[in-house]
Structures are given as structure tokens and as C-alpha cells.
């Protein structure tokens, strides 16, 4: 999503692209934190989250706990706090702990082999 928004911004089409992420009733963002996010990317992500605040749902999956979000967004703790604030005001955080679910499949595959 960030790559799409960055390209749109460079081409002067940011407004149109933002609408496509703001209009849907549910925005599902997978694997936040898997790839580094620069300042521009962080600002664009914030624009989407801020625009959807109290007007559209977001489900976000991440491998990074909230305390690491500042480092994730180009060491911008203010932006990270504002982002978490908007997500959590009418939201909840669900923490999943344990071994990799992928390893579970691998174990069962190796057992059956």
C-alpha cells in the first residue's frame, strides 16, 4: 500500500489513490513491520489511518509490539504514538504467542513422510 501511495504521490495522483484506501468499510493491512518504512511512507500510512479514524475499520497484523513502532517509522515516536492512538481508541490489540504456525505444518509433514 505504501509503495502504491508513494508512486501516486510522485505522479501527482495521491488524492485518487488515498480515496481507494479510505472508502472501503474494512482495510486489512498485513505484515506491518516486515519491511522498513521511511519518513514519506510513514506519513502516507498516517494519512490513511487518520482519514479512516471513526469512519472506517482497520485490521492490521504486525510482528512488532507497540513499543517498537517508533523505530519502525523512521525513528518518529510522535507519529507512532498518534497512529497507535487512532487505532486503539475504538480498537483492541490481540497478542499471539508461541512457535511459528508454519513450523506446525512442517512438523506434521515430516511426521507423515
Amino acid at each position: 500500500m505504501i509503495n502504491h501511495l508513494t508512486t501516486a504521490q510522485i505522479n501527482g495522483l495521491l488524492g485518487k489513490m488515498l480515496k481507494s484506501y479510505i472508502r472501503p468499510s474494512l482495510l486489512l493491512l498485513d505484515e506491518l513491520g516486515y519491511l522498513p518504512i521511511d519518513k514519506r511512507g510513514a506519513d502516507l500510512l498516517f494519512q490513511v489511518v487518520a482519514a479512516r479514524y471513526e469512519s472506517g475499520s482497520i485490521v492490521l497484523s504486525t510482528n512488532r509490539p507497540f513499543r517498537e513502532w517508533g523505530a519502525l517509522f523512521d525513528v518518529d515516536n510522535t507519529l507512532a504514538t498518534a497512529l497507535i492512538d487512532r487505532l486503539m481508541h475504538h480498537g483492541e490489540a490481540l497478542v499471539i504467542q508461541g512457535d511459528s504456525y508454519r513450523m506446525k505444518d512442517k512438523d506434521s509433514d515430516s511426521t507423515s513422510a
Partner: protein
Amino acid sequence: MARREDPLQTRLDRDLAELKLPEIARSYREVLDDAARKGSSMLEVLATLIGLEQAARQQRALQRRLREARLPKLKTLAEYDFTFPKRIPKAAILRLFDCDFIPRHGCAVLIGRPERGSRIFSRRWVTRRPSAATRFVIRGSWT
């Protein structure tokens, strides 16, 4: 002996094709027969036919979005083994999958190390009660 075509039915089939209402075209004979048996009103018949077309459109729209999302593999929540993770808020996750938070514009953040469930759940979301989210977008590093 070849069945004689009813001109009214021929016209109806042609009009439905032009109006791009394939589900009604496919089901109206069966719905009319069923209505005749049950003595249903014309309003009930109309509502049934329009409802079938609407449901089929929603399903096609869902399939199109799933193709556009280029998900690696579709999985359902029922396939997920809740006993595998060391700690998982099962009740909260199941409640979330009812999608009741969507009309309230609520949010959720699934936090977990890679492949401990958060990513797996997000792939399952799209197969769960799609009507609750008539418009949705899926984006991730795998798209």
C-alpha cells in the same frame, strides 16, 4: 419431441441477458414453479429473484477482490488450530471474525512474531462473512 419455445420466455431471456441479470435468468423458472406450489405472492417472487441476483453479484465481487488481492492460498478460520499457539486470545479473535466492529468503525491490531498467527488470520478474514464488509481492500508485502 422437441419442446416448443414460449415467445414470452424467449423475450424474457433476451431482456435479462441485455440487462445483465444472469442469476435471475438462470433461476426464474425454478422460483416461479416453487411459488406456484407454495402460493407465494408476486411481491415474494420478485424479492426472491432480486435477492438471488444481488447475492450472486456480491459473490462475484468478492471473488474478483480475492483475485486482485493475489492471496497465496485461501484458508478458513475453521482450519486454524487454536491449540497450537502458546497464548492466543481465542474468544476475542472469534468475536472479531463476526465483523460486528465494522459498522462501529472499530479497529484491531494482531501482534505476533512472523507466522505465529497474525498473518494467517488476516488471510482468513476475507472468507468470513463478506457481506459485513461490502467494500474492502487487502494489501500486504505479498501483494
